[in-house]
């Protein structure tokens, strides 16, 4: 029966599919919008699959929790409660400090420091590509996650959202070869571009030789790239390589975030001084203050 029909495929169909594939590849490379939409639509299916195959892991973990030692759990609970109280206490201080900073900034250049909105998301899987540092999280488009949103963990910057679909989102880690961000070098105030290498470290090249940096210095986001809000810790300098002939140094840095054991991450959905508010923010610093004096005065009065 079926074996004796040739079912030899037509060349026309092959050629059409080949041309369509090549067109799709070039449009994707260029970054056409509707290709992105196709990617997002189909990605909802694949992210759903990733989410589904992650379910057994969740189940095993919750069963394991059932059998966990009771005393251990209570110890954990106490520890977390203490930590929570501590953090809340520090938070109070932070709120008053923020108010002070806002007042001072309003006097200086009229820039307000909003606290960004963050969203807790669980890591559900990673795509099977050996060289790309990508992973999938269980929150998506419905939770206001957009491509380009910064992703952080408790220690520092993790990466950025690459694609957001109905069932999840893909995050690119800052150590990926395709990722780059702008950082402030320690206390020197100088900014540099920090590039992922595909390995576990980051590289900042072409830093002028006289920049005062030491191994162990913390690199924080500068906010210039409009992708990350200012001031998040990114990495620590582990090595400084000099290139005497060129007059530049090259910094090797290790990310502060624990990228090897990510379980939960925070997505900054509304970056205050990056992303959406930036175009107006850039104008504000030059011409007019961003914070209207009335509200600022009200806030100050509220503080007193």
């Amino acid at each position, binding site marked *: 029966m079926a074996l004796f029909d040739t079912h030899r495929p037509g060349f026309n169909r092959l050629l059409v599919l080949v041309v369509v594939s090549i067109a799709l590849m070039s449009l994707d490379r260029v970054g056409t919008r509707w290709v992105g939409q196709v990617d997002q639509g189909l990605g909802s299916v694949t992210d759903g699959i*990733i989410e589904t195959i992650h379910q057994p892991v969740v189940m095993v973990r919750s069963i394991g929790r059932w059998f966990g030692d009771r005393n251990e759990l209570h110890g954990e609970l106490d520890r977390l409660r203490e930590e929570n109280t501590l953090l809340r206490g520090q938070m109070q201080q932070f709120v008053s400090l923020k108010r002070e900073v806002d007042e001072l900034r309003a006097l200086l250049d009229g820039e307000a420091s909003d606290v960004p909105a963050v969203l807790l998301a669980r890591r559900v899987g990673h795509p099977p590509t050996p060289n790309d540092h990508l992973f999938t999280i269980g929150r998506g488009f419905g939770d206001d996650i957009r491509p380009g949103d910064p992703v952080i963990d408790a220690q520092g910057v993790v990466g950025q959202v690459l694609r957001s679909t109905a069932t999840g989102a893909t995050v690119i880690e800052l150590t990926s070869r395709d990722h780059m961000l702008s950082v402030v070098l320690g206390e020197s105030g100088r900014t540099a571009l920090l590039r992922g290498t595909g390995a576990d470290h980051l590289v900042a090249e072409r830093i002028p030789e006289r920049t005062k940096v030491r191994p162990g210095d913390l690199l924080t986001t500068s906010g210039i790239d409009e992708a990350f809000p200012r001031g998040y810790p990114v990495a620590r300098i582990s090595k400084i390589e000099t290139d005497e002939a060129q007059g530049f140094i090259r910094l090797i840095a290790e990310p502060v975030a624990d990228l090897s054991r990510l379980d939960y991450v925070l997505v900054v959905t509304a970056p205050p001084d990056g992303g959406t508010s930036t175009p107006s923010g850039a104008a504000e610093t030059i011409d007019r203050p961003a914070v209207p004096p009335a509200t600022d005065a009200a806030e100050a009065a509220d503080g007193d």
Partner: protein
Amino acid sequence: MATSWFSILFTSLAALALVLMPLPEGVQVHNPQWLLLVVIFWSLYRPAQAGLLYAWVAGLMLDVATNGLLGLNALMFTLTAFLVLSLRQRLGVAPLLSQALLVAGFSLLYLMASLWVEGVATDLASMAAYLSRALSNLAAWPVIYFLLSRLARLAER
């Protein structure tokens, strides 16, 4: 006919899930290309239902799932399916071992082409690790063959 469509769709999704399963880094490289094997199987044994378009869609789904260049795997899947469909009458009656060897050969071509396009591995060791997936495909083909032919027979009963 309807059951056959269903089984093709179901097995393709299951294969995609197997490909996407999170594995430790060392094992990930040796995970067989389940989706490719399933596409090859259906092109061999149900060519009326699973043609070039099916292979193209499967490849596109893989592209989307892995965040790769959109259309790359789709192109490769189509070309592989074309190769398999043209050799179908010889390949369909071949003994399992030579079938598996040929399938591994196809996937080796596939891997070399994608290696060339992506340019991911430059040194010989990582190139060899990348191409060694063809060996795991060789091992996985009998599994796919037995499971899917059993399923196809069940679905058509």
